[in-house]
C-alpha cells in the first residue's frame, strides 16, 4: 500500500451514552495494513467506540474521515467496506452454521466470495456447517461468527473482543488469520483484555475516562 492517507481518521472523537461522553476525546489514524488494539478499563467505551464508528451509537467529532470521505455523508460507503463482529455472535440457535452464515449475507443482498465450508475452515471449524448453532459452545459460536469475515470483501474489520472465550490454540489460529488480512492491506481494529497472541502485531490505543468538570 503506497498511499499515506489513513483509511480512518478521527479527530476529537467522542461516543455518547445518554448524551454524555463515554471516553476522553480521541485522535486516531488507522492506515491500511495496520492493526489497532483498543484497551482501557471496563466502561471506558471500547465497544461504544466501535459501534459509533458504524453509526450504531451516537457520537460527536471535529473530524471523522473514512477513505478520504467526510462522515456522516460517507456512512453508507464505510458500512459497505467494513465488516463488524460484535460481542454477541448474531446467530440463531435453531439454524445450522451454514444457514446462519448464508442468511447473514443474503440479508445484505450480497453473494459470498467463498464457500461456507472454506470460511469455517479459516476459523478452525471444518465440517461444522451442518451443526445447529445452539449445540455449540460459546467459544465455537464466537469463532463461527468470525467466519462471516471470510465471506464478504472488506477493507476494515471492527471486532469486539474476538478472542474472548477462546482457548490458546484457537486464539493463535484466529490471530494468525487476522495478521494475514492486515498483511494483505486490510485495516483492523479490535478490543480485548489480557494478552494478544504474538503473531498479530498491533498498535495499542488506550481509551481514557472523560474528565468531569
Amino acid at each position, binding site marked *: 500500500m503506497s498511499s499515506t492517507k489513513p483509511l480512518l481518521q478521527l479527530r476529537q472523537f467522542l461516543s455518547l451514552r445518554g448524551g454524555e461522553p463515554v471516553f476522553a476525546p480521541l485522535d486516531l489514524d488507522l492506515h491500511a495494513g495496520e492493526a489497532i488494539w483498543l484497551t482501557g478499563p471496563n466502561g471506558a467505551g471500547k465497544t461504544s467506540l466501535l459501534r459509533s464508528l*458504524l453509526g*450504531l451509537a451516537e457520537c460527536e467529532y471535529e473530524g471523522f474521515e473514512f477513505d478520504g470521505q467526510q462522515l*456522516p455523508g460517507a456512512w453508507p460507503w464505510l458500512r459497505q467496506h467494513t465488516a463488524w463482529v*460484535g460481542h454477541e*455472535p448474531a446467530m*440463531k440457535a*435453531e439454524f445450522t452454521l451454514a444457514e446462519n452464515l448464508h*442468511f447473514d449475507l443474503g440479508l445484505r443482498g450480497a453473494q459470498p466470495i467463498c464457500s461456507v465450508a472454506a470460511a469455517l475452515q479459516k476459523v478452525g471449524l471444518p465440517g461444522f456447517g451442518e451443526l445447529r448453532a445452539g449445540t455449540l459452545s460459546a467459544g465455537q459460536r464466537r469463532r463461527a461468527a468470525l467466519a462471516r469475515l471470510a465471506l464478504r470483501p472488506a477493507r476494515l474489520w471492527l471486532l469486539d473482543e474476538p478472542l474472548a472465550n477462546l482457548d490458546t490454540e484457537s486464539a493463535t489460529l484466529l490471530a494468525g488469520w487476522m495478521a494475514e488480512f492486515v498483511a494483505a492491506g486490510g485495516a483492523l481494529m479490535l478490543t480485548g483484555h489480557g494478552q494478544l497472541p504474538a503473531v498479530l502485531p498491533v498498535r495499542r490505543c488506550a481509551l481514557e475516562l472523560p474528565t468531569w468538570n
Partner: protein
Amino acid sequence: MELSLSRAFYTALQRDLQLAWRRRGDLLHPFAFALLVGTLFAIGVGAEGPFLATAAAPVAFLAVLLALFLSVDGLFRPDRDDGQLDHVLISPVPLPLHLSARLLAYWLVHGIGLTLAAPLLALLLRLQGELLPILLLALGICTLGMSAIGLVGAALTVPLRRGGMLLALIVLPLYVPLLIFGCGAVIAGTGASAAPLLLAAALSVFLATLAPFAAAMALRLGMD
C-alpha cells in the same frame, strides 16, 4: 459489490418463515391463549345465556386480537439480544424493505396462524355456522393491519428493557378501527353490505404500507 434488493427481501422472508417453522412449538402458546380467552369468557357469562350467542363473534375476534398482541414483543427483541439487529441496521439494504419482509412473514405466521383458531373458538362459543366464513375473512384481513401496528410498537419499545404493559398502551388503542370494522362485518352478518370488510382491507393495506417506514424511523432513533 453488487447489491440485490429482491434477494435481500426474499432472504429475509425465507429466514423468518424458516425460523418460525423450526420454532413451531412456540406457536402453540398464542393459539392456546386465544382458546383460553374464549373459554374464560364463556365460563364468566354463563354458557346458556342469550348474551353468549350475541357476543360470540366479538369475543372470538378479541381473543385472536389479544393473542396476536402477545407475540408482538418478539418481533425485534430476540434479534436485538443476539446482535443480529445491528447487522440489519448497518446493512446497505434499505431498512423499510427489510421490515416489509418481516411484516409479511409475521402476518403469514402469526396472523394467519391465529386466524386458524377461529373455527375452534366458533365451536366453543356456539357461533352461528353461516357467520364463520365472514369471521375467518375479517380476521385474515384485520390481522395484517394489527401486525403493521405491532411492528411500529415493537420497534419503538425494543431499546427498552421490557415492552410489556407499555407496548399494550401504545398498540391497543390503534387497534380500535380494525376492531370496529372487523367485528362490524361479522355482526352485520351474511346478507349485509361488504362495506366494513372493504374498509378493513383498505385500512390494513394502508397500515402495512406505512408501518415499515415508521418502524424504520423508530429503529434508527438511537443511530447517527
